[in-house]
């Protein structure tokens, strides 16, 4: 059994809405082991996305911790948490969230650019381009480099989003309903891509409301009423 690279403990998150406190996560304990494909199953509004955002350091919990490489990421300062998101957590969203003005290649490259200054970029440029092209090749889009999102199909957009998430070779790929906006065939091809990435050793945490999709993973946990239960 490989070691857990992310360990969430007693994770709670509540929101104030219309004068009421809404408890979305009520104490989640979860570990993600290196190389595994974890599926988090739950209904709409069950807090799946909130849990994923906390694991990726995009949101802060009301209480609890997310330990990565022995450090609670919420004790990190703003800059180090940003670096965690950039280097260790690769997000893939249901609605792709590509930047519409950029081409497919630029959408992937921007992840590399984030860690580079204007002066440092010329030295890294070639390598970054090579990596970005490799990632697009890996997701089967090597002939779509200059296309902007508006000129790509839904499946192609999601592939670009996956390539963007992978460009900095993150420790974990955090996928939020990656097939939720796609037809069955396209969703199948995206899952095939996830399988391929998983075989190559990529750690994946995926949330979904679809049992069939969830079953593609190694392990499935279900989020109900703010708490996790193993299948």
């Amino acid at each position, binding site marked *: 059994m490989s070691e857990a690279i992310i360990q969430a403990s007693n994770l709670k998150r509540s929101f104030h809405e219309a004068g009421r406190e809404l408890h979305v996560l009520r104490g989640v304990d979860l570990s993600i082991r290196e190389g595994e494909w974890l599926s988090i199953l739950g209904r709409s509004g069950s807090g799946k996305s909130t849990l994923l955002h906390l694991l990726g350091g995009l949101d802060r919990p009301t209480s609890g911790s997310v330990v990565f490489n022995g450090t609670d990421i919420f004790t990190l300062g703003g800059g180090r948490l*940003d670096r965690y998101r950039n280097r260790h957590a690769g997000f893939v969203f249901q609605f792709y969230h590509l930047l*519409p003005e950029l081409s497919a290649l*630029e959408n992937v490259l921007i*992840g590399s*650019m*984030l860690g580079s200054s204007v002066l440092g970029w010329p030295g890294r440029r070639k390598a970054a381009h090579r990596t970005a092209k490799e990632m697009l090749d890996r997701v089967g889009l090597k002939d779509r480099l200059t296309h902007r999102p508006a000129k790509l199909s839904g499946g192609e957009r999601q592939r670009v989003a996956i390539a963007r998430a992978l460009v900095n070779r993150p420790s974990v790929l955090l996928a939020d309903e990656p097939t939720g906006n796609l037809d069955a065939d396209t969703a199948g091809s995206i899952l095939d891509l996830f399988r391929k990435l998983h075989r190559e050793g990529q750690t994946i945490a995926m949330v979904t409301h679809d049992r069939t999709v969830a079953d593609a993973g190694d392990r499935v946990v279900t989020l109900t009423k703010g708490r996790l239960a193993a299948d």
Partner: protein
Amino acid sequence: MYKLLLISKYLRRKLAPLFAAVAVTICTAMVIIVASVMGGFLDLMQSTAKQLTPDVVIQSPSLTGFSGYEELVERLEELDEVELATPAIASPASVTFGDLNFPITREVLVQGIDPRAYNRVVPYDDTLLWSADDMLERYKASPLGAAGGPRSRAEVDLGDAGKHLRLPLLYRNPALPAGDQPGAVIGVALNPVQLRQKDGSYIFDNSFVGGSVTLAMPVFSESGQPLDVSQPRIRVVNEFKSGFYEADSAVMFVPFDWLQKQLQMHRIEEFTAFDEVTGLGGEAVVRDARCTHIYVKAADGVSDLELHDACQQVVSAFSRERDGVLLRVETWEEVHGTLLGAVKNEKGMVTFLFVIISIVAIIMVATTFYMIVLEKTRDIGVLRAIGAPSTGVLGLFLVYGLAIGVIGAGLGVWLAWFTVTNLNNLQEALANRLATLIGSAVLAAVVALGLAIGVAAANRKRDFSLGAGIVLFLGVFVALMAAAYYAFPAISLPAISGYDNEIGWRMWDPQLYFFEKIPDQVYWPEVLAIGAGAVISSVLGAIIPAVIAARLNPVEALRYE
């Protein structure tokens, strides 16, 4: 690095920043054009006012003038600060142009000057309007010329007529020495028959050169007692045009010595009347020569104020020795203080108004940026999700504001420079070629629109943006208009140009105004300051939206609809 990539894309792919940049361009150009024209107007006014006003003027507040001026001139010329001092007399008078069908009498300030010395103090010779060639033509047309008299300029001694304020050979009495035959130079706008042409020029045939005028000047004793009215007749030998209407319409120059005699201000030695009853009287009395003004020119490198202070000391000492005779010492700017002050105030007021307009521009940029931030909210969430720090998002929008400011201000400076340096051509085109201009603009717009639509259609598959279309349209339109503008003399569109004379619009009428040209100088230090102000305004306008963007919660930003 990602900021530069995104900014370059946003600038090319979005209309809002294009509009923001255009707003900055127009605001910048507007402020520069107004500041340049107003500044140019002030400079032109100062330089024309300076044209006939010496660095420092020492003047008696009384028409009677003051005696002992020769000594004062000597003392002034001993100062290191003074290059030259020359006495002058200014007397109010009426001047009657008697050679006309209907004699016309006007008010005038007669200035008695030593023309050679005066020309060293101010560029007097340069203001003389008619050349020796003009006068030679008139000489040739005269009975003397027709009778086969001298033919060359040198022979007829016409060239220096106005410069020396004496009669040229044409009008001279051969029985008298040349130096005793004075001539007058009148302001071109004083001449009642000299009307300014449409283009602001004057016609020699309308000049009063060769005509005689009669002056009527009050004569006072030094104590201020009116003695007489002097009514000499003098021939006009040239006209001057300084460009300063107050001088050109109300001043005439005559020789100093001649005017001094006419006003009985020259040195007079006489005997008092002999009383046959008492046996008293008959003593010799000397009345010293008087003048009303002393004109002073500063030595090289001496400022007007330094010269003023040095002269003031000498004049104060002179006054104390002369029973406190009142003399005023003024720099040329003080002499014209009221007029120049008014223009300075106007410039200040206009600048203030444009500061307010600039604040409006800041608000406009802020509004545009706020709209951009709203539109880009989800992008901001994505950037945060893939690791962009909030300071990075702040920097992105600030640099974006800076880029829009630099582009807008750069184009604004160019537009202002092009407009200001071509204002007179533009005025000419609007006045004489408006129909051609409108016709060319319509044709250029049609061609540019056709081209833009054609290129857009051909590039549909490559997602040709509206912004690129607008930029292409404007580029082609401006290029065609520039080509038409420079090719105007060659353009002949009979169907259109036939209306040129009917619809011309003259924004600056040289016939009415005393500056026939619109000031067209660009003042680069001012331009750079305004351009920098526009850039800073754009960044200021971007600050609040940028802070809002940086403070956005990334999760909420991702969910933004």
